[in-house]
Structures are given as C-alpha cells and as structure tokens.
C-alpha cells in the first residue's frame, strides 16, 4: 500500500541522470551558440546604453522639462503634468535622481517594446482560435515560470547587464498586453463589424478603424498592467546587474535598511503612477465618445 500514500515517482537515479543530461545539454548549447546569440542583441544593448546615458548625463532641469512636455502633449492636463513635476522633485530631493533616471530609461524601453510586440500578437490571437489555443499556454509559462529559474540560464547566455534584464522584464510584462488586446478585440460588437464588412473594409481597415478604437478601454487596461508588471520586475532585473532603483532596494533588504527600501520602493511607485496616468489619460483622450451618454 506504499504506492497509495507515496506517489510512485521516478527512480531517484534515473531522475538524477535525466537532470544531469539536461544540464549538460544546456551548457553545451551556451558554449556553442552563446556568442552568436549575444551578438544578435548588440544593437539593442547599444541603444539601451545610449538611452541610459542620455537620461543620466543630461542636466536634470532639461530632463524634467522634457518629461513634463511629454506628459502635457499626451494628456493636456495640468493636473497630471503638475503631479509629474512634484514626483520628480521629490525623487530628486531624496537623492534618488540618478537611479530613477536609469530605471525610467529601462522601463520606458521595456514598455514600448512590450506594447510593440504584444499588440500585434494580441491582434493575431484575436483573429484565430487556433493561434489563441497555442499562445495562451505560452503566456502562462511566461508569467508563472519563476524569473529566478531563467535568470541563470539567461546570464549564461547573455552575461549580466541590460539586455538580459530587458528580456526578463519583457517576458514577464508582455502577457497582460497580449491577453487584454485579444480580449478587447474579441468583445467588439458583431453588428458594427458586420457594417465594416458590408462597406468592404479589409482587415487592416477593420482593425484600425473599428476594432482597435472600440477595444481601446480594454487595451489600455493591458498597457496599465504591462507598466505595472515591468516596474514590479525592476528589482529582479537588478539581480542580474541592471542598474537603477532595484539595487538600493536589494541593498536595503540585505541590510535591513527598512526606510531605504521604502524610499526607493516609493520612487518606483512614483514612476509607475507617472507612466500610468500619462498613458491612461492619453487613452481617454482617444475615446471622447464615451464621455457623452444618452439620458
């Protein structure tokens, strides 16, 4: 009756050998293809380095003005621009300017990349149930496979630094973007789509003139979640050498500097709120029609 209480699992030795084989295979793979793959990401690395240099080397008043200008252009809201200003000043006052700039540079690239990759995949997924069936489990893996598990393989392949950090962040942050784009498009009213068909809209036109505009509230929720999750990964990314606000947090934990952790954590939150409010307000500006309601 032993099997009843104890799951009859694989023989220990066999298991151990299996593990060894897999380990060795991967090691062999990195040995053979590591350089190739690393080379592939070199342009991205240069871009990331340049972007970070720009953010940290430019004098702070210029950066501040730049951020405010973007916030204003996107939202036309004084309230939001003022909020950004206060956040930035507080961050600077508590001496986290440089780390914050590094993190903003990184997260900005990650968010843009996640949207740029996630949106098309979400669109494809919404068009075909087959694609949806295939992509969904992949997204599950991306979201739940602990990043710790792939940190070392990624480092073995790409070394430590910005590129592997970016990959880890994007892997984690992209699924909600894809999922909610897919959902949003699938929920678009069939009657309206039929009208677009009747006028001979091709797939592109249907997408840009009907589906995306009507799916916008849901897609914006996806962008919000992507930003949130990218920022939630800041600390993990700093575990493989990405500079920014994650490192003081790690230091704070290791040393039990409770307040240091809170301050840097709040700076991350501040960035999150800035990114989120600006992008959501921009999204709302794109959907004026939802403001007016019959009755």
């Amino acid at each position, binding site marked *: 009756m032993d099997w009843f209480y104890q799951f009859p699992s694989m023989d220990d030795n066999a298991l*151990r050998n299996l*593990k*060894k084989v897999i*380990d060795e295979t991967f*090691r062999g793979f*990195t*040995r053979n293809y*590591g*350089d190739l793959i690393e080379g592939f990401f070199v342009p991205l*690395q240069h871009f990331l*380095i340049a972007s970070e240099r720009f953010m940290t080397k430019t004098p702070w008043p210029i950066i501040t003005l730049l951020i405010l200008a973007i916030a204003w252009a996107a939202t036309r809201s004084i309230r939001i621009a003022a909020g950004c200003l206060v956040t930035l000043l507080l961050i600077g006052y508590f001496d986290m300017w440089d780390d914050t700039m590094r993190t903003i540079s990184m997260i900005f690239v990650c968010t843009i990349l996640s949207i740029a990759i996630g949106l098309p995949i979400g669109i494809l997924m919404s068009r075909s149930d087959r694609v949806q069936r295939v992509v969904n489990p992949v997204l599950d893996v991306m979201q739940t496979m602990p990043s*710790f598990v792939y*940190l*070392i393989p*990624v*480092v*073995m*392949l790409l*070394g*430590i*630094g*910005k590129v592997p950090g970016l990959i880890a962040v994007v892997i984690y942050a992209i699924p909600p973007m894809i999922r909610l784009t897919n959902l949003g498009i699938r929920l678009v009213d069939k009657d309206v789509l039929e009208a677009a068909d009747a006028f001979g809209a091709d797939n592109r036109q249907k997408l840009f003139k009907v589906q995306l505009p009507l799916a916008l509230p849901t897609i914006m929720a996806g962008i919000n979640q992507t930003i949130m999750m990218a920022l939630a990964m800041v600390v993990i990314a*700093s*575990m*493989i*050498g*990405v*500079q920014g606000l*994650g*490192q*003081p947090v*790690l*230091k*704070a*934990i*290791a*040393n*039990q500097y409770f307040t240091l952790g809170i301050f840097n954590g709040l700076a991350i939150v501040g960035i999150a709120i800035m990114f989120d409010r600006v992008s959501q307000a921009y999204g709302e500006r794109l959907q004026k029609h939802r403001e007016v309601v019959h009755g």
Partner: protein
Amino acid sequence: ADCGSVTIASMNWQSAEVISNLDKIILNEGYGCSAEITIGDTVPTITSMAEKGEPDIAPEAWIDLLPDVVKKGTEEGRIVKVGSPLPDGGVQGWWIPKYFADAHPDIKTIPDLLKHPDLIKDPEDPSKGAIFNGPQGWGGTVVTAQLYKAFEAEKAGWTLVDTGSAAGLDGSIAKAYERKEGWVGYYWAPTALLGKYEMVQLEAGVPYDAAEWKRCITVAECTDPKPSAWPVDTIVTLVAKPFSEKAGPEVMEYLNKRSWSNETIAKLMAWMTDNQASGEEGAKHFLEENPDIWKKWVSPEAAAKIEAAL
C-alpha cells in the same frame, strides 16, 4: 528526552542546507525533538529570529558577511552565538578561473592582474576591464569596492560591475567558465560553485591589516582605503534567545560541539553537486560515511539511536 518542537532555518546555499538537515536528523533521532526545517533567505530569517524568536536555530551564519542584523540581534541579546560549524572559517577574496591562471602564469596577485585590463573586458564598455562584485548589501561587496579603490583599479582601466545578486554573480562565473573567458571577482569558499568550477584566489600582495580593515575597508563611506589581504571569516551557529533557554543542556552542547572542516564539507558538497543531491540526501550520506566525525559531537546513547535510525 523532552526536547519539543524545534525549527531549523535552512539557508539556500549548499553547506547551510546540508548542516541544517544534519541538525534535524540528529535532533530528531538522537534527542527526541520534533524538528522542522524552514527555508528562508538569510536576512528575513535572522530578522525573524531577532524580532519574533523564530525559527530557533540558524546553523550556519556568516556573521562577518552578514550586516547589522546579527550584530544588533546579539548586542540586544535576542540571538545567541553557539559554537561554529566551520571552525576553519570562510575564505573570501578575489578569484580567477583556474584555466585563466594557467594561461597567465604571471598573474598571481591583484596588482599583477590589474596591469591587464584588456584580458577581461567589460561587456558594456569594452575599453575597460571588469571586476565582478557581489550583490549590494553583502559585506564582501563593500570590501571589494573599497579594495578596488585601495588598489587604484579605476586608474588602471577597470570598472566594478555590480552583479545584483548571487544568481547574477554565479551566472557570470558560469558564463565565463563555459566559454573559457576571463573573469575576476569576489567569491568565497566553501561553496558548491567553487567545487564545480575550479577557481584560484588572487593574493593581495600585502598582509592582512586588522586596523585598516576595521577603519576603512569595511566602511563604505571611507574614502582612503589602503590595500590589505582578506581575513578568515567566522561562521557560527545562531540560536534564538528563547530557545537557548528552554532547549536543555544536551542539545546546546551538541550545537556547540558540532563542527566540520572545510575539507570535509568540500568533499560532501562535491558529492552533492555530482549527484544533484538535496540537503537531506547530503546529510544522510555524511552520517553514513563519516561516523567517526559525528559520533564525537553527541552522547553515546544519542549516537546509538541515530545509528539505529540510519
């Protein structure tokens, strides 16, 4: 004996894992405790011991490496040091891979290496050499940063790379090793990694200077460090104050006596790594293979009980 329930903290590196499993087996079988292992990261675990008196035992704490938590906890009498599992102490320093040392027989000391920044290029700025530091918050990381200043590495064309975490540090070693690239950085022994990847410690070229060590090398804000070699680290067993009071002399005595040499643990870890073994398997293996060592730690009747249980 009436020992009651005990919680043993297992840290997530190999030597700590195996010793906590060893403690569990011995306490359970030998002293009639019902010991449980809780796994946790070092800092949360020790914080919890200091603030909540739980878990009861942290068998292997690198107190020189660990920051303020331990110091504060012991000063305030919330945790107690009992004995040392590794009397040889931990060896810290800057290491280079064996193949690298073999290829460059002229490099023996830190100053030797610093003359060749082109041998180990920084991936983000190839004009510089890279010294891989540990993650933020470790004592060794601060020391490395100070020694970097002391040896004037920056002037020699080196940057200090922050690896962010143990995983980052390990990964960078693994990457270099698999591709037979150059690598230099902070590490320590005994560790599984050094069992797996053979590394050579760089000598400082100067002797250990205790005063300087205390004055500047361990103080992050200090601006004018002088070179010094690394001292040997003390590794102790920590016990939460409440447990130390209720555990009874027998158990405390065991905890005091229990210790092994770096050689023993290195061998054990090599076996574990070869077999991808868990801490429990490692502990059993040790108990089976080395009765002469562990029987000295326990009373004869306990030894008999443990022997019987194996």
